[in-house]
Structure formats: structure tokens, C-alpha cells
């Protein structure tokens, strides 16, 4: 059903921001009702990037699905396949070797850094435009991210959709110089991130544009089910890696950064801090990498042979965007009966109609950027 946009009241301008717009971070339509430049009402429209992965899952075998889910949230592929793989492992009661668990963490955390770097860069574009200072920040962040992608390439042969996670373990083992390269990359990125943070925190224009804008009060964040940096930006210390640990996260020491005000600046600050914390985790994982096998299953002759018992599980991981949950129902066959993805971006953008009214159009872009939605993840 196509909803027609009509100007309802005199003096109110209905502006369609999207689905094709430089700063909606994908195909997303915001129907803004403006009075002057002030937003009075927002109706978000989603679904432009619906690819039907959940339905597709019902026709594919379990072992075929992790790569499919990597295409879901296209900025942090590993967390998606990780959530799915963990769910299937719990369904089929497969134990994962410790080494595999460590390697999964290494890749997941490196990709968290990469994802946050993309976020920081595109946030620069939102605030400064593609033809100005924003583009400079964007290109710097992408240059840093390139280092991580190179690392991924030498580890797995793929730059981005690493396909690292496999049911029962990981697909690729590290090579001898990997740890040295990782530490080097982390040193480089940490320095850069610190530098950008200093530069941005000293930039009056950046502070003006982010402080006190788009405040998400903690109750609202809870109400809409926000998670990840958005929730933590509002001051709620909730991180699945700490609160409902999975893999070997309890063995690592790291902080969960939280904000105070819940404004755009706090979300930015939480994400930048998280990059540093992720680097900390990767360092520990690389140093304490246990010996042993990297997967626990014997190779199967056919993917149809993996038949988990009849039951259903919900497993959630902390993706760079928040709580990424997979609800998998098995009917005892080699294909899932139903998969439901609880995607963090979907819940986070539910904040939009609540926090946008009262702001200006320029703030709408900044706030939307600060929620870090990935529309592959929202629409699935």
C-alpha cells in the first residue's frame, strides 16, 4: 500500500527524506513534517531493503546459513553469523573448542572496530557533508578500516564477509605472524582513534552540533528496546558481553563505556571508547590464544546430515549496533523451521519518531547518524 503524503495543515511542509537521500544510511524514508525548519512530526518508513533472509533460511541447510547471515548487517558480518552459529550450536548441543571461541572473539572485535570506524566516518559525512571536512574524517576512518580489512584478508582470504564462523568452530586458523600484525594494526588504530577523538573534542563546530541534541532518556531507551551504544549512551550499563556472557568473554578484562546525557555526543563518545576497549580484548585474546583444535565437528559428507533435535532457542550477541538475537526453531530436519532475527538497528530506529520532533532538519541527520542504523539489518 502506497501511503500518499499530503500537507495536512497550512504552514506545514511534508518533506520526504529518502528513500534516496545522501544521509539516510541506506534506503530509508523519513516523512518529516516541518514548520519552518523545525520538525513537528516524523513518520519513518522501512522495508526498502527487505531481502527475505528469514524466509530463505527455511529452505537452506544449517551449514549453508552463516554466510547468508553475514550479508544481513553489512557492516559487521561476523556478529550475524556468530549469533546464528551460537544458536545452532545450542540447538544441536555442539561444544566449541576454546581456541575457536578465542578466534571468534578476535574477528568479532576487530570487526567491531571496523564497524565503528565506518560509523565515525559516515557521521562526519552527516555533519560536514561529502564536500568538506566531513569527507576528510570519512576518508581517514576508511583508511584505518582498510588495515583491519587487510588483516582479515590475510587471515581468511576475504576482506569483509570473512565467513570465519562455522557451526562447531571456526574455518581458518591463524598463521604464524598473525599476532604480530594484529598488535601492530591495533597500535596504529588506537593512536589514530585517540587523535581523531582529540581533534573532534577540540572542534567547537562538532561540539555545537552534537551536545544536547537528540537526547534519549533512559526510560525511552528501555521502552523501545534500544540496545548497544544507543542504550549505553543514555547511561544504562548493559552489554551482553558482560551481562549475558557468551563465548569466552568472561575471561577478558574490559570496561563497558557509558554516557551521561544520552545525546548525540554521548553516543559518539561511547562508540569511540568501545573501539579502544575492543582493541584491549583483541590483545588479550591474541596473547592468551589457547592451543588445540579450531573446530569440534567431523566434516560431514553432506550438509543435510546436521539435524538438530526438535526445540527452539534464542541466542543474542552484542553486535556493534546492540543486541543481535537469533530465535531458531528446529523441527528435527536439516533446515530450520523458522528463524527470527531480533536486529538491533530495527529497535534503535524506533527511537526516531520520539526524539526527532522539536529538532531542526540538520539535527535529524545528526541524530539518525548517531543511532547507526544499517538498513540491511533493519529490513533483513
Amino acid at each position, binding site marked *: 500500500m502506497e501511503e500518499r503524503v499530503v500537507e495536512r495543515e497550512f504552514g506545514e*511542509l511534508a*518533506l*520526504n527524506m529518502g528513500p534516496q*537521500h*545522501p*544521509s539516510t544510511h541506506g534506503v530509508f524514508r523519513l516523512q518529516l513534517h*516541518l514548520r519552518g*525548519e523545525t520538525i513537528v512530526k516524523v513518520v519513518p518508513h522501512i522495508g526498502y531493503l527487505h531481502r527475505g533472509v528469514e524466509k530463505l533460511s527455511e529452505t537452506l541447510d544449517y551449514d549453508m546459513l552463516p554466510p547468508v547471515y553475514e550479508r544481513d548487517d553489512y557492516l559487521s558480518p561476523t556478529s550475524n553469523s556468530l549469533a546464528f552459529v551460537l544458536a545452532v550450536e545450542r540447538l544441536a548441543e555442539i561444544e566449541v573448542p576454546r581456541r575457536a571461541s578465542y578466534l571468534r572473539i578476535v574477528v568479532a572485535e576487530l570487526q567491531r572496530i571496523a564497524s565503528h570506524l565506518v560509523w565515525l566516518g559516515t557521521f*562526519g*559525512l*552527516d*555533519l*560536514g*557533508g*561529502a*564536500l*568538506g*571536512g*566531513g*569527507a*576528510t574524517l570519512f*576518508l*581517514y576512518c576508511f*583508511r584505518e578500516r582498510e588495515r583491519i580489512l587487510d588483516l582479515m584478508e590475510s587471515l581468511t582470504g576475504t576482506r569483509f564477509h570473512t565467513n570465519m564462523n562455522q557451526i562447531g568452530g571456526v574455518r581458518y586458523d591463524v598463521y604464524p605472524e598473525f599476532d604480530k600484525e594484529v598488535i601492530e594494526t591495533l597500535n596504529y588504530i588506537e593512536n589514530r582513534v585517540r587523535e581523531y577523538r582529540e581533534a573532534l573534542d577540540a*572542534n567547537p*563546530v*562538532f561540539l*555545537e*552540533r552534537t551536545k544536547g541534541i537528540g537526547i534519549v532518556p533512559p526510560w525511552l531507551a528501555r521502552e523501545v528496546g534500544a540496545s548497544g551504544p544507543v542504550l549505553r549512551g543514555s547511561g544504562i550499563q548493559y552489554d551482553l558481553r558482560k551481562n549475558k556472557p557468551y563465548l569466552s568473554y568472561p575471561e577478558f578484562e574490559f570496561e563497558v563505556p557509558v554516557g551521561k546525557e544520552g545525546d548525540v555526543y554521548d553516543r559518539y563518545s561511547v562508540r569511540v571508547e568501545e573501539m579502544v576497549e575492543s582493541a584491549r580484548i583483541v590483545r588479550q585474546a591474541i596473547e592468551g590464544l589457547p592451543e588445540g583444535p579450531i573446530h569440534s565437528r567431523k566434516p560431514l559428507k553432506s550438509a543435510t546430515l546436521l539435524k538438530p533435535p526438535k526445540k527452539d532457542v534464542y541466542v543474542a550477541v552484542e553486535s556493534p549496533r546492540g543486541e543481535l538475537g537469533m530465535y531458531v526453531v528446529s523441527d528435527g530436519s536439516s533446515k530450520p523451521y523458522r528463524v527470527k532475527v531480533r536486529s538491533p538497528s530495527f529497535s534503535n530506529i524506533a527511537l526516531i519518531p520520539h526524539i526527532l520532533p522539536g529538532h*531542526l*532538519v*540538520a*539535527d*535529524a*541527520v545528526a541524530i539518525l547518524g548517531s543511532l547507526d542504523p544499517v538498513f540491511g539489518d533493519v529490513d533483513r
Partner: protein
Amino acid sequence: MSFLEGFVQGIVLLGSVLGVVAYLTWFERKFSGRLQSRIGPYWVGRPHGWLQPIADGLKLLAKEDLTPLKGDGLLFNLAPVWVVVISFLGFAFLPFTSNWVLVNIDLGLLYFSAFGSLIVVGVFVAGWSSNNKYALISALRTAAQMVAYEIPLVLSLLVPAVLVGSLDFKDIVEAQREGWFVFFPFVGQVSILVFLLSALAEGNRIPFDLPEAESELVAGFSVEYSGMKFAYFYLGEYVHLLAVSLLTSILFLGGPDGPLFQGGIWVAIKTLAVFVGILWIRWSFLRLRIDQMMLLNWKFLTPLGLLNLLIAGLWASLNYT
């Protein structure tokens, strides 16, 4: 100066400004490339893509020229022409060397600022006649921004005029032989600051490029324009930028005056230096919001400009009686 002579000089001026502007865009792309650890144009014309501006010009000429069906066709087509013509007209009054100026009148500064303030009409008409909501919002922003920043701009332009006691560029240049106005204690520095900030706002440059804020308004007033008409706006912007840099070098940096030798070379060097400064600001700053920008104008630049003008006036009245 006979008519023919003036005509030829005008054509030469027009052509050289066009050429300079074309290569300023190339320079900006190379410069921003270096700033962002890229290379910039490289392949179109070796070395370093020196043919890029020409290739871009040809590309824009060959592009399909669209006029929105529901827009106001006449105004839509007129607006880019207006912007370009007005931006070029300002150049007629600027002295490039100490003894050459196309239109030699003693009210050069007044004419220049008068023509500068007419650009807003073209931009507003462009936004209005596009019949596009983004363009409309942009047009409203433009009107607010350019009219508002006109005030501190003129206030700061008046300072050298008051110090010299003349609106003639030649007199202003002449008076700076004893000392450039940028070194004039307090008054000079404040007025160059106010001038550059408001000139950036007038020229829709970052951090004040709200009319064409592409992350909010896609491309602002020029969103419906394509091909050569779009290029006209781009051209107008760069011509304006060149004029601002040139004006800064003439009004505040002593124009053709300089160590070792005198003449047009110094004007070129100073203009380029100011231009690089503006580029540097553009490629390292984010964008302000409309209300913050208006606050900056009304609460900071305008009072400061007024105060500055007052001090300059007091100084002048004490010295020139």
C-alpha cells in the same frame, strides 16, 4: 579608453578569470586530495590531471539539460545566468596591479559590495523556481543567510575605506604602502577576521554551506539543475571565492605592495594564499546549523564589526582633521 579598447580588455579579463577559476577547481581537488591522503585528479592529462577542468567542462556541456515541468521555466533558466553575470561584474572594479583596473571609478568598493549582494537574488530564484521542497528550504536558508551576513561583510569592508578616507581601490592600495591594514593594530585584524568569516558565509562555503548542505538538503537550491546550468552555479561560487581572495589581498594585505618587487605577481601570490586558507577551512570543518549560524552573525560578527568600525572612525577623525 575607447569603447573597443575597453571591450577587448573586458574580454581578456573575462577569459582569464574563467581560466583561473577552472584551474582553481583543479587546485582545490589536488589540495583536498593531499589533505585526505588521496592523490586527486591524475589520469586526465598527465602529469597530475591538468586537463581535468577542461574535461569536466566538456562533460557538463554534453550533459542533458533538464527543466522541471512544474517549475517556473523562465526563472529557472535565468537564475544561473544571473548568478554568473553578477559574480563576474564585481571583477570589473578590482585593481589587479597598481595601475590597471577595467572600470576606473572612485566608488569601486561600493560597487563591488553592491554587486556582491545581488547574487542572493539568483540563488533564491533558483531555489524557488525549481518547485522542489529541498530547493525551497535551501532558498529560504539562502535568503536568511546571505542577507544577514551582508551586514558584517560591509561593516568590515568599510574599515579600510574609513582608514583611508576613500572608496577607491587605488587609494586604498596606495595608502597601504606605509603599512598593510592587516597589521593595523586591533582594527585591521578584527576586520579581516569578520570579513573572511562573512565572506565564507556569503559564498556558501563550509562551515556555512547550509544552502547546499548535501547531507540534509541533497544539493539545496541546485538540486534540480543539471549540465551547464549547474556548472554556472559552481562557476559563480568559484568566481565569488576568487573575488573574495583578491579583495582580501587588495584591502588588507597591501595588494601589489611587497618586498623585493612590486606588481601583479604579489597580488597573485597573496590571492592564492588566501584561497588556500579558505580551502583549508573547507576541508577540515564541519557544518554549522542554521540557528547557530545566525547567532554567530547577530550576536558576534555584527556587534564586533560595528565596534570595529566605530574605533576605525574615531581613529580616522582624529587623524584626518
